[in-house]
């Protein structure tokens, strides 16, 4: 890309919004990823894709705002998982159940209402270069919420994610905290979908958290490192995509993936 076109591209409002979205998600979503790994709900993204789809379908059918429906339904789905958080068998079973039921319900709703299914599926092909102000604000609000939850509950969070019984025995209100976390994670993932698309959510969420886990020795260390990796990955990926003039999404995923690979190698040597 020539210097002139580069300057022109960087002057576009959509690109400004994309950069803002990258920075915000770069800082906050890795923390969500830490929560996701800690709660053992790595399938959260799939589940929320399906639940969000159901939300959009319901929105299209009823005439309510589809995005709002999707976010609300995801929050409800997150909360509905909370009672399972304290069980020994973990959350993966209930997650699969939720996910399959949600997609079935979405298809039923779409079929009954007779709306065009393609409109609903658009949600999954979000793009950073099509970010509207509304989505950006929603993600920014969630980013603040995520960071506030981390800062406000650092000690109980470290215990809860380490071991639920130890947390219980240390006076942590396990049910309340797990509900808060699950709702936040569900809504954050749902809100990030239209920004990044389904594929990229994992790259900005799980990969930095996984990278951090390879190196961190404490909970705080893991959160801090994940944020660094998220920011670095998003920034480097963005610059590379601009310079080589290739689609942003895949380049971001590859950058984050390369970092994770690197931490895995470094982490094993230590």
């Amino acid at each position: 890309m020539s210097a002139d076109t580069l300057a022109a591209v960087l002057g576009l409002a959509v690109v400004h919004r994309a950069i803002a979205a990258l920075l915000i998600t770069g800082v906050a979503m890795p923390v969500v990823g830490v929560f996701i790994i800690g709660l053992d709900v790595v399938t959260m993204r799939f589940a929320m894709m399906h639940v969000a789809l159901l939300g959009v379908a319901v929105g299209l059918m009823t005439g309510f705002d589809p995005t709002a429906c999707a976010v609300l339904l995801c929050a409800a789905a997150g909360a509905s998982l909370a009672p399972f958080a304290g069980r020994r068998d973990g959350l993966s079973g209930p997650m699969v159940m939720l996910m399959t039921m949600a997609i079935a319900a979405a298809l039923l709703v779409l079929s009954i209402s007779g709306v065009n299914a393609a409109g609903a599926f658009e949600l999954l092909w979000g793009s950073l270069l099509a970010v509207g102000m509304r989505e950006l604000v929603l993600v920014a609000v969630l980013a603040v919420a995520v960071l506030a939850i981390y800062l406000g509950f650092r000690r109980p969070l470290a215990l809860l994610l380490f071991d639920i019984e130890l947390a219980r025995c240390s006076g942590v209100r396990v049910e309340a905290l797990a509900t808060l976390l699950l709702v936040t994670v569900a809504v954050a993932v749902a809100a990030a979908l239209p920004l990044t698309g389904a594929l990229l959510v994992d790259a900005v969420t799980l990969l930095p958290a996984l990278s951090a886990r390879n190196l961190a020795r404490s909970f705080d260390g893991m959160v801090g490192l994940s944020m660094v990796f998220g920011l670095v990955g998003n920034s480097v990926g963005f610059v590379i995509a601009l310079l080589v003039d290739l689609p942003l999404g895949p380049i971001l995923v590859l950058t984050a993936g390369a970092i994770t690979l690197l931490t895995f190698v470094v982490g094993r040597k230590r």
Partner: protein
Amino acid sequence: MFVPPVAGACAELSGESAAPALADWCAGLRGAALTIDGLSCRFGGLVAVDDVGLQVEAGEHVALVGTNGSGKSTLLRAVLGLQGRSRGRIVLDGTDARSPGEWDARRRLAPWIPQRQATGRFPLTVDELLDSSGHRAAAVGVATRLGVAALARQPLHTLSGGQLQRCFIARAFGAMANGGRLLLADEPTAALDFDGRDTVAGLLRALPASVLVATHDRAVAARCDRVLEMANGRVREVRM
């Protein structure tokens, strides 16, 4: 009943290299009475705890012995509400916990040394574990006594089995200092070396509070006021 003099207890708990601050928390310790009545816990068709009644007086030390799978851990976990009960009463310090708030209070009154210490999916340092006791100074003091204080910055999943057990013991003593009145110790010496067993048996004996300890360690059982034996979910008193 043998009641250890508080001064002696403090010396034992803090070791020779006693930090003066240690005496403070240990002087404030006291026991609470536990009464279990008609308690049953089931796992599906299996009755792991079967109509158990037992009493630990305030300040009394009681050992729970018995074959593997006889229900000792299940009983201790039921006292903490980590294990559901199908019937029965578990009254500690006059309260049978039913509401979440009461269980929270119960868990604070009854610190626990788990038989299987969690190493967790997540990094947590020794320091953070000791801190979770609610009384860092006491926990660190006992960790020093047990030789694991130097590991403070080490993540728990990198510790050896015995080191991990020592850390959880130190944490439980810290929790005793933070308002604990009945220590529930589940095989506290199982992973320890010979010296460690002696030290921990001595620490337990010195604790001026109620203790209910499930153990296969004769040295620990011998230092308790009473020994109860569990078999097939039932409890009977034995002479050692």
